[in-house]
């Protein structure tokens, strides 16, 4: 049996006197709540996780998988949006639009829910949350920094997917002007502006997913529960949206306008649906974030 020695503790004997303190707060002088959990630190903590790497890696992989599928099978009439599938092989911008279209309903939802739902719940499951809070990182600051990083990763995932899809489309189908389902073409410069609008709108739509997952993640100590719960609720919303008997009530469903970014592909951008979708998404998100904050600021951390 080997005996591990604990060390000589020579350093402890020479330990310096305690640091000066701030008389008003009683804190160590060098401590400031505003400097706790810098974004860079949280980014490193998240980026080194296999989960983050896999999620982002899949964003790189998916366009090439789709490319292979198109090369192997040729275009297929998959239904859904007006012909984005049929136009997928026209060129890089169209391939990108199709990739985004194929990812909007589920893949991006899962990725965004993963980043936003897991960030607090995972700390709770590792028991590291209590040490961060006792560091002390003020609770509101912890939520804020974690949310900013999670949203940043979500946005990065969307941008990464778009960029890789452009690249994959370029490799696979060359660079040809984008064609809208209306038959009109969109010049490259305009197409980039439209893509930015699409990404921006997708990000706003996904904000709701992030807010939902974040709220669940603040409630539960089980990361999978938060992510899965959010995904399931989004799917339920999608299912309700398919029930035409609900009529106009469906407009208030948070996922009702999730594909409205297609409206940016016409000869001119039609903002109506996107405006409504964005306002609904932001509105729901504020409520959900508000609930998350309310709960987390008051909760007894037992994990």
């Amino acid at each position, binding site marked *: 049996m080997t005996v591990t020695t604990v060390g000589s503790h020579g350093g402890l004997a020479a330990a310096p006197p305690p640091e000066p303190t701030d008389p008003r707060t009683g804190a160590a002088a060098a401590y400031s709540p505003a400097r*706790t959990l810098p974004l860079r630190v949280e980014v490193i903590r998240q980026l080194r996780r296999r989960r983050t790497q896999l999620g982002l890696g899949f964003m790189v992989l998916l366009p090439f998988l789709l490319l292979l599928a198109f090369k192997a099978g040729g275009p297929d009439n998959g239904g859904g949006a*007006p012909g984005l599938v049929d136009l997928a092989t026209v060129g890089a911008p169209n391939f990108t639009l199709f990739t985004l279209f194929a990812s909007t309903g589920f893949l991006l939802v899962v990725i965004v829910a993963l980043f936003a739902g897991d960030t607090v719940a995972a700390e709770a499951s590792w028991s590291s949350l209590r040490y961060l809070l006792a*560091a002390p990182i003020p609770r509101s600051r912890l939520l804020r920094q974690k949310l900013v990083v999670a949203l940043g990763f979500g946005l990065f995932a969307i941008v990464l997917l778009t960029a890789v899809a452009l690249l994959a489309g370029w490799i696979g189908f060359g660079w040809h002007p984008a064609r809208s389902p209306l038959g009109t073409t969109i010049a490259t410069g305009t197409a980039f502006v439209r893509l930015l609008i699409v990404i921006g709108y997708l990000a706003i739509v996904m904000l709701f997913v992030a807010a939902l997952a974040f709220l669940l993640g603040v409630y539960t100590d089980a990361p999978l529960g938060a992510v899965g719960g959010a995904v399931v609720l989004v799917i339920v919303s999608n299912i309700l949206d398919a029930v035409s008997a609900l009529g106009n009530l469906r407009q208030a469903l948070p996922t009702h306008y999730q594909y409205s970014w297609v409206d940016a592909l016409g*000869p001119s951008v039609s903002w109506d649906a996107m405006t409504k979708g964005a306002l609904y998404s932001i509105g729901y998100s504020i409520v959900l974030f508000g609930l998350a904050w309310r709960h987390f600021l008051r909760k007894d951390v037992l994990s």
Partner: protein
Amino acid sequence: MRRRTTVALTCAAVIVAVGGIGATAVAGQQPGVTQTASMVPVGNGPDGSKVSLDTTLFVPKNLHGTAPAVILAHGFGGNKDDETSEALTLARHGYIALTYSARGFGNSGGQITLDSPDYEVKDASRLIDLLAKDPRVHLDKPGDPTVGIAGGSYGGALTLEAAGYDQRVDAIVPAITWNELGQSLFPQFAQTAPATNAADTAPIPVPGVFKKQWAADFFGTGSDAGVTPTTCGKFAAAYCAAYQASAAQGRPTPEMLALMAANSPARILDRIKAPTLLIQGEADSLFPLSEGDANAKGIAANGTPVKVVWYGGGHDGGLPETKRIDSLTLSWFGRYLKKDGTAPDTRFEVTVPNAALTASDSQPKPSVRVAPGLPGVTSTGSTPTQALNLTGGQQTVVAPAGGSPAALTGLPGFGSILGQVAQAGGLSSISQLPGQVATFETAPLTATLRLTGSSYVDLKVTGTAPDATLFASLLDVPSGSAQPVLPQSLVAPIQLSGPLNGGQTVRVALPAIVRDISTGHRLRVVISTTDQGYALPQTARAYQISLAAPTLSVPVLAVTALNPSNPALVWIGLGVVVLVLLAGWLVLRVRTARRIAAASDPALVDIPLVISGLGKAYQGGFRAVSDLSFQVEPGQVLGLLGPNGAGKTTTLRMLMGLIQPTEGEIRVFGHRISPGAPVLSRVGAFVEGPGFPPHLTGIDNLLLYWRAVGRPIEEAHLDIALEIAGLGEDIHRRTRTYSHGMLQRLGIAQAMLGLPELLVLDEPTNGLDPPQIREMRDVLSRYAATGRTVIISSHLLSEVEQTCTDVVVMDRGRLVAQGTVAELVGRGGSTLFGVDDEDATVRLANAMPGIISAGKSHDGVVMDLNGTPPADVVAALVAAGIKVDRVAPQRRLEEVFLTLVGQEHS
């Protein structure tokens, strides 16, 4: 609402879906409207027979006093029932509505004379007479009711003519109708003069090309309307004969030209004083936009208010826009019949179909744009144009003998359906036949072009034939492999006469279209020799076609979106969002600042820990801690001792700000603890086991934790922490691979980062092996020796005894004992004597001097020796004949502990 386009049964199929079905469905559901049907005698027909019209009067039931009236005229081939839905709508809005079947249609008698001023137009005056006698109808003066007329197509021309011939008409809404029937059925788009307005036509004085398919539908419908199989059906004989003769020769007979001219609004536009809302359809190959413009121009020239609306529908289907047209009509009548005082609105409105996409219904979405007026029509000046360079040299095109094969661009009533096929790429092969077309193209556009109206091109046509029949169209040509699009499937026929061998230069008005042409697209002018919709020359010809001027003049009317998505709403929404967030942030900041400011007690700044009256009750009533008070002084190593479940961990969690106390408070260096209290930066804690992200190495965990604390790295004293962790090279492995003991040591090292003034360790020796436990004891006492304070919680007596200077004993959430270890464990403690005669022992002990107390216990006698050596007591007992089998120190701490824990311990 004026979409009733029953010119032909074929197109009725498309249109009925819009209005007809709605009419029957809605009819029974209008309890607030009284409907009265009656036959109204109106006079004789051209054949001398007496004619009565089948009418229905719609009166609002809640009508008090009088109301203005509206006459609704139906389309060709229809009857009064087509207008029921709209009549009910008007009645619901307080109008008295009158629908009727025109002569020759429905149950009305008489023959069709195509809106003749002598018959159909006079009928309208008889109906106005009828309204003038109804006491419920508001009168402008005796015999002159306040009345408006609305109608589409056949009813639209009637509307215009009635307003021209009968000055009692106060407002009209004619829709998708003709200006000059001759130009509609024999269109001629070769121009004499430059254009001044967006869909101008100034045809050269040569009869145009016979629009045979539409004409056949038009006249065929009238012929079918009868029960008896005759070639003329209900058409009056003169009309029937003129049409048949014209159709047979493919060009209008003089009789036909005279009849068409007599029955066209063009003749009487200068008489129209009734404010006119003129609606024309973009999807209309029968009465194209140029007809509406000509009407609007003629009426506006009188100074009469005219509003022109180009909507997305028409005889070819397109976009119905029912709601929008309804509301435009209601507001027009409201302004000029009810005199509701709303501001005049003569802005030009144009629908741009396919302007945008929408995901909600997978359909392209139109957008409606406005301009202050239509230049040259309802406002001064002329439509601004832009000249685009055209390329393409002289091309020879052939017209086949017998006019076959001929291009197929559209079907009457189905133009836009073919257009959709064309967009899918299936039609270009039949809309332009090889050898029959000459094409001229612009360069790719450098900016989006909002095409609104007719473009013009100057052509030179040379040939050997005595005349020429050509069809001009304008295509939107996307870049890449996408198919060109022929917007609305519209073509502009040209008929040239006279010698062509020297070449004839002609200005051609291309079809008026509304479309956004994207950047990068080209415009292509196509000149074809054939089109199946028209009568074609029967002899084979060849023409040479070239550009007389290398430019295409396109209208670029300045239009703006009518209803941009309500920006006010967006900004208000965003404003509220920002305000809510700002308010929440401010409230949080103020509360935090107040809490921290109110949390300081200057008298206690040197006391590491003061707990007073602390209590925690969880939801559901379980009390983990009750009324706990104690104080820890600097330099102490305090043991928090108690069995599992005593509330130790809950207390430490409250100390870390993780759990909110329900009563009492905790002060660290005088500052009250709350979640995230800054003073916690001077506390290092290890509570309930380690907590590390498993994907990080040991060293990364420590470094990133310290960076999360946000203090300078030199304050961390990482070397000391690493020394305490004692993990060697393992510190560079992921913590996922660590054993429990390694995690434990890393956790303690993390708690000691920054050498906090108050170090809190919960069960620190769990999982450590004996040498490590000994080392840990050493570390903690050295740590306290630096003037810092340590709190250790444990359920093990020995650990506390060996490590701590002071002890707090807890059980079931309460404090049961506190003091120094020396006080509680000190030499003056009790001693247990195992004896055979306990009663005798107690008696003897009580008699001995120095012994403070003696009492029976469950396994012997416990005495408080107060310094008396146990050996002396044993000697005395043995001397008294009492057998002693064991002597054991019975410490008070353990006694307390045992009492608390019960009988589990022996």
